[in-house]
């Protein structure tokens, strides 16, 4: 860290104009870096406090109350850990926790695998590469409402194009033989596919960027040592990508775990609650007819705690990496 003191930002402007590169540290007052640093961070801290920490604290606070969502301005009854106890004994909560975990793990894994594969493909040279790199980002740009509706149109069992195509090549006897979103397994797969389709470009961009900074001489050296393409992939590419993939996986997990819109808009959590994730349960508990804000908050706090654990793992990993 440099010890040079910064000139005062409040220094008269005229003087500055006269000598824009005047000798440092001769202003009337001097602010040490520490204050400057604090000043530069202050607005962000303020934003965090008002827009994040307060809402978060509010959520944790209300999780100890029995409170109707309509009564948030007037107050409810303090009930201690009652909402958490209710949660632990609630079958639906455990079911949703399981579904959410499965959903996140599957979606993130597929995103990573597909994203990496596509990044590798787009890293090789072929005509129109720039165009293709641009095109694959489209799903990421489309509004969620539109994504869901297009896919509902495609999946539709009685006039959907997917079924029509499968039918035309003769794999199914009738157009309506597969009802994608109507049974638990295929509905789960269907929702996963849409989430992967929408968000995998993010992985592609990041992996592609990392691929470009892998030194080529590593490959050359391996070639000289007689390593085949497969061992080169595992020993060099994958090793170089390991860190970034882990990071992306964790960040994506947080995002997908909290994702409400895609699943809700596609299936409302059905059929047979096969796609009922925690965010949908929060919604049904806190905001729909039930309106138990305290219970909804309790679920959210548990989700938060789970993600905190994930984060802790992440930071521990980072620290280990830094020490290397």
């Amino acid at each position: 860290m440099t010890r040079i003191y910064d000139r005062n930002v409040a220094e008269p402007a005229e003087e500055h104009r006269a000598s824009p590169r005047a000798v440092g540290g001769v202003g009337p007052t001097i602010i040490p870096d520490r204050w400057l640093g604090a000043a530069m961070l202050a607005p962000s801290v303020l934003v965090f406090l008002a827009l994040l920490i307060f809402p978060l604290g509010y959520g944790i606070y209300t999780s100890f109350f029995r409170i109707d969502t309509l009564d948030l301005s007037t107050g409810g009854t303090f009930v201690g850990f009652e909402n958490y106890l209710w949660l632990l004994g609630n079958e639906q909560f455990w079911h949703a926790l399981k579904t959410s975990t499965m959903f996140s793990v599957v979606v993130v894994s597929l995103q990573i695998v597909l994203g990496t594969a596509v990044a590798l493909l787009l890293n090789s040279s072929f005509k129109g590469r720039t165009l293709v790199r641009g095109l694959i980002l489209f799903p990421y740009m489309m509004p969620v409402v539109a994504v869901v509706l297009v896919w509902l149109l495609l999946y539709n069992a009685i006039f959907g194009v997917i079924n029509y195509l499968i039918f035309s090549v003769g794999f199914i006897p009738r157009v309506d033989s597969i009802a994608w979103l109507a049974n638990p397994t295929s509905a789960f797969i269907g929702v996963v596919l849409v989430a992967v389709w929408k968000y995998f470009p993010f992985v592609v961009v990041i992996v592609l960027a990392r691929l470009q900074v892998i030194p080529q001489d590593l490959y050359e050296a391996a070639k000289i040592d007689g390593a085949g393409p497969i061992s080169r992939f595992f020993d060099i590419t994958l090793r170089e990508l390991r860190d970034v993939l882990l990071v992306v996986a964790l960040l994506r997990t947080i995002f997908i775990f909290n994702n409400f819109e895609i699943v809700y808009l596609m299936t409302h959590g059905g059929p047979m609650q096969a796609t009922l994730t925690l965010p949908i349960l929060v919604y049904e508990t806190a905001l729909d007819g039930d309106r138990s804000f305290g219970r909804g908050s309790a679920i959210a706090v548990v989700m938060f705690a789970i993600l905190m654990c994930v984060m802790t793992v992440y930071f521990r990993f980072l620290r280990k990496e830094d020490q290397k």
Partner: protein
Amino acid sequence: MISLSMRKRFTSVRTYLLVALLLMFVGFPLYWMLMSSLKNSSDIVRLPPVWWPLPTWEHYDELFSVTKFGRWFLNSLIVCSMSTVIAVFLGVIGAYSLVRLKVPGKEVLARSVLLAYMFPGVLLVIPLVLVFSHLGLINSQFGLSLAYLTFALPFVMWVMRDFFGSVPVDLEEAAMIDGASRLEALRDVVIPQAYPGIIATSIFAFLFAWNEYLFSAILVRDHDLMTLPPAMANFASAMDTRWGLVMAASTVATLPMAMAFAFLQKYLVTGIGAGGVKG
């Protein structure tokens, strides 16, 4: 020799096949969105499907004559630009401070930026309303753009922190020994080095806001102040889906971002690459 060139050709054929496959996977739903927006309502759900409709512009027509789509589009542009500008400005100086200056407790802060993503939005929005109503920021575009900082600011700080970390300290020190203040060094030396990162984070920050639904639906009340996602959601209520209208609206809503990405794609890859990689 022959076998080598054949292998090369095989590799390139394989590459093109895979690219074609990829484009079909990514492109088909997009193609279907575009085509559906150009079909009349009964053709959208017709079987066998209409692959190349004789284009009808009725949905686009309705979009601009019956609904206030133009207004909402402009609103979205305004809100997203404001939010991006604020997030990038605050994020850049904040990240710089985290990297280069001594600030007590900055490690805690650096980590807490990720808290934003860890609480379900449906519950975040109500306390946010509480804060905003005290500040008089409900039903205001400025207020909404501030709400988007909850996502955009942590993201910008997160990426820019690593970016600044990768800019050599020597350059700044040289500038400061030459008499530049720290802020001048930041402006003249560090920021130019970090342009790719700034552009990349700006695009992502803009994009978060462009597609955001919940905050906009709750914090903005006025029909004339709405942004695109909640306005578009009204075309597809639980009771009724205006397929054509939604598809037309989505096509128009996706276009500007698509253009931005196409132009800035280069920065995006290098930008995120240098910054996002380390995490």
